């Protein structure tokens, strides 16, 4: 049990951190902090998984083979980050922990924000929400973990079926099954107890990065922004349809990840573009984000390019640079490929 938990902790924290070092090394210096490393690491892992797994799913190959290949890819990403990005860790640390330079008020607010986030993570472990869609998504994870086919068994009945095209191109449940296969922890426990809290942390890490860009002139107000955002989220259960409701009740489902991870990431990256803070690392991550949008939900395949296209038009006019449209179009290539595949398979 202890070994399983240590492996899980490694997969959910250490691996994304190390994988994130490589892209962040090639980012603008202002983006080099621990939060960005963690965020980028997850984007790398999700994008790599998406690129790798879809051919296996469409070709109806075994999950075991796909899992072995992904283990190798994950190790390569981790080693690449360690070898090429390790020197950056100190710089990221310094950029993140500037408490001694902060006013007392900011330090208090940061403490409150951190306590609130930790409480939400702990609550996600000990509170349950019985969502009907888990009969599909979590059952897919559980049956993939225990069997070998991917999207070839009906999760409601267990019978064999034709490839479930609607869900097959957004393999979050398969990713969770991969973690389960590696750690030996049941996919349902992973989904409900561990994925939820970790992705809440990831969500707030993303919002922290957004806050850094919005309050560049007054960084002492970042914790105040995050405090209000915590309240906004905690009291956002006004209907079943808000992203805030999904964040707490369906965190482990791909569509919740889209609304609470991908969309904030898209907003963050648009802020980078508008501030001319895009370097090689940021462009690569925007490309990866296109794949991650598809990874989370089939609606992401269409919504990512729509959002990026609108942003591209606005920014091209504002900056008087038509090349932005071509750069954004290039970043949407994964969406285009998955969109064509989705329509073709449907």
């Amino acid at each position, binding site marked *: 049990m202890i070994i399983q938990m240590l492996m899980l902790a490694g997969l959910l924290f250490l691996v994304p951190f190390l994988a994130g070092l490589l892209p962040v090394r090639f980012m603008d210096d202002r983006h080099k902090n621990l939060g960005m490393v963690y965020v980028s690491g997850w984007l790398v892992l999700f994008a790599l998984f998406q690129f790798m797994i879809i051919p296996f799913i469409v070709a109806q190959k075994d999950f075991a083979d796909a899992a072995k290949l992904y283990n190798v890819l994950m190790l390569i990403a981790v080693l690449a980050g360690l070898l090429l990005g390790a020197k950056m860790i100190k710089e990221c640390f310094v950029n993140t922990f500037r408490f001694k330079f902060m006013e007392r008020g900011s330090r208090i607010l940061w403490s409150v924000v951190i306590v609130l986030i930790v409480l939400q993570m702990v609550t996600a472990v*000990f*509170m349950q929400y019985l969502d009907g869609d*888990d009969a599909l998504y979590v059952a897919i994870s559980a049956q993939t973990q225990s069997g070998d086919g991917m999207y070839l068994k009906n999760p409601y009945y267990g019978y064999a079926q034709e490839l479930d095209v609607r869900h097959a191109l957004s393999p979050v449940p398969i990713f969770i099954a991969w973690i389960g296969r590696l750690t030996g922890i049941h996919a349902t426990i992973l989904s409900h107890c561990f994925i939820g809290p970790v992705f809440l942390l990831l969500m707030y890490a993303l919002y922290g990065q957004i806050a850094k860009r919005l309050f560049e002139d007054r960084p002492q107000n970042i914790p105040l922004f995050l405090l209000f955002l915590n309240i906004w989220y905690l009291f*956002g259960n*006004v*209907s079943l349809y808000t992203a805030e409701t999904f964040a707490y009740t369906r965190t482990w489902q791909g569509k919740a990840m889209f609304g609470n991870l991908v969309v904030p990431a898209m907003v963050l990256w*648009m*802020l980078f573009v508008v501030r001319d803070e895009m370097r090689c690392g940021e462009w690569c991550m925007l490309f990866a984000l296109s794949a991650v949008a598809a990874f989370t939900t089939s609606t992401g395949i269409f919504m990512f390019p729509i959002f990026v296209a609108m942003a591209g038009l*606005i920014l091209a006019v504002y900056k008087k640079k038509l090349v932005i449209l071509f750069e954004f179009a290039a970043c949407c290539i994964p969406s285009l490929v998955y969109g064509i595949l989705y329509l073709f398979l449907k």
Partner: protein
Amino acid sequence: MLGNMMEAFRMTIDMYRKFSGVGMVTVFFLAALGYLWFWEKDKGIRMILVYLVTAVLVLFFFPVFSYLAIYHFLDQEVYYRFLWLMPMGVIVCYVIVRIFEQFESGKKRVLFSIVCGVMLMLQGSFIYSNPAVKRAENAYHLPQSVIDTADILHVEGDWVKAVVPSEMVQFIRQYDPKIMMPYGRDMLVESWDVQGGNREMYEAMEADIIHAQYLVLLCQQERVDYIVARKSSQIGGSFEEWGFMKIASLEEYDIYMDKHSKFYDQKREELGLD
């Protein structure tokens, strides 16, 4: 096509209302967006948080786009997610902090922050006060009765098939995917077409009085190994009379097994039955 567009527009309005729900989330958001339109001076932030977000909002309601989205590349069930492309929380909280910065007095700042915090709380609905959010019974975050039942149904290294009450249907296979079922969650959602589940069997299980002979006949046609019946159910006749023997009794459920099932003897031995 014009008719479809008008229908799509009507659906969009309806969706927006449902999305807004019981709180004032969208009202706060529109107010904050309006504030930024008039007062945000940073051109970069105007591009993203004002013009881009407004473009998304306009596109959401634009009949041609909503028609294409609902009828072609998204669908009516998920079109509301387009609203997620607007970072409402970011915009509202950003505006609150920018207004906060304009107060020079520390006391006014604190008072303003408290008022805004309270308003955000009062306009919304606290997620943990949702009656559907409860203390987890176990690490799986599933009803314990489902786990207890599934543990009895489980046959190591093999697949089994079971008929379970409706309240268990969406949980059993999350715990043990080797338990097959002749019907699933599709029976519980009225708007779904039955995807392949056995509606006849579901209705027989959920009838006010379960006719044992009839249900057993349906189960034998589908080679069902187990029937899990609520103790509170009225059963016309007895399952044992028709070949399904009681093998376990839990707090709320009785479990019956087909004596012709290839696992019957193994299960009886496992459970220590005579």
